[in-house]
C-alpha cells in the first residue's frame, strides 16, 4: 500500500530533482556525485519531513538546504580520503589546460571559492532571492550580498567581460 507521504515525496521528486541535480552538477562538476546526492536528498527529506515548516520557508529552499549540506559533507569526506590516499585519485591539476578551456564558464566557476560559487549558481541559474540563499547556506543576507558582489567581480575578471552595469 502506498501512503500519502510516499505520494508527496514522489511529487516533490518529480518537481525538484532536476533543479537539485543541476545545482549540484554545476557546483561539483561530478556526475556520479550529483546523481547520488539527488537521491540522498529525498531519502533525508523523508526522514526529516516533520522538521519542515511551510510558514518559514518554501519547500524548494528546504530541499536545496538538505542537498547543499549533503554536498558539503560528501566533499569534505572525499577531501579527507584524498589526503589519506592520494594515489587513488586522479591528479587532475597536473593535466595541461588549454587557453580556450581556461576561459570557459565551467572552468571559471570551478576557480571561484566554493562559497562564492554556490551564491552565483543559486542567483543566476535558479533565480533564488538573497533571503532564500541565506536560508539555504545558513548565512546572513549581508554575507550573501557581499559574496555575490565578489563572485561577479571575479567572474568578470576571469572571463574578461566588460563591466556594463
Amino acid at each position, binding site marked *: 500500500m502506498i501512503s500519502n507521504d510516499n505520494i508527496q*515525496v*514522489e511529487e516533490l*521528486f518529480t518537481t525538484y*530533482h*532536476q533543479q537539485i*541535480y*543541476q545545482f549540484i*552538477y*554545476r557546483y561539483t562538476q561530478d*556526475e*556520479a556525485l550529483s*546523481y*547520488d546526492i*539527488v*537521491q*540522498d536528498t*529525498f*531519502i533525508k527529506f523523508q526522514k526529516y519531513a516533520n522538521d519542515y515548516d511551510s510558514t518559514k520557508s518554501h519547500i524548494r529552499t528546504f530541499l536545496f538546504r538538505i542537498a547543499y549540506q549533503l554536498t558539503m559533507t560528501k566533499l569534505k569526506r572525499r577531501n579527507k580520503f584524498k589526503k*589519506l*590516499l592520494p*594515489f*587513488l*585519485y*586522479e591528479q587532475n591539476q597536473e593535466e595541461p589546460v588549454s587557453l580556450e578551456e581556461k576561459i*570557459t*564558464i*565551467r572552468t*571559471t*566557476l570551478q576557480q571561484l571559492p566554493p562559497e562564492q560559487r554556490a551564491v552565483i549558481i543559486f*542567483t*543566476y*541559474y535558479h*533565480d533564488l*532571492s*538573497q533571503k532564500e540563499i541565506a536560508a539555504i547556506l545558513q548565512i546572513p543576507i549581508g554575507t550573501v*550580498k557581499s559574496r*555575490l*558582489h565578489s563572485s*561577479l567581480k571575479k*567572474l*568578470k575578471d576571469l*572571463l574578461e*567581460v*566588460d*563591466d*556594463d*552595469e
Partner: protein
Amino acid sequence: MNKHDIPEELKQKLDEFEVDVPDIPLKKSLSQRIANWLYAPAKNPVDLISTQWTPFRIAMFPIALLFLCSLPLLLL
C-alpha cells in the same frame, strides 16, 4: 543586486553551462549504493608504476593497503 543586474555578456557566458539531467530513480538499490561508494575515477595502473616511489610512499604503502583491506570491517 540580483540576476537582472548581471551584465548581458556575462549572462551569455553563464548560459553556455547547460546541464543534461539523467534519468534518476527516487529509490536507491543496494547494488547502486555500493557502486557509487566504490566509484572514483580510476587511474591508469601504468602511471602508478611509473610515478616516483619516494621512501615515504614506500613506507606508507603497507599502511594504506591495510587500511583498504580493513574498510569492509570498519563499515560493517
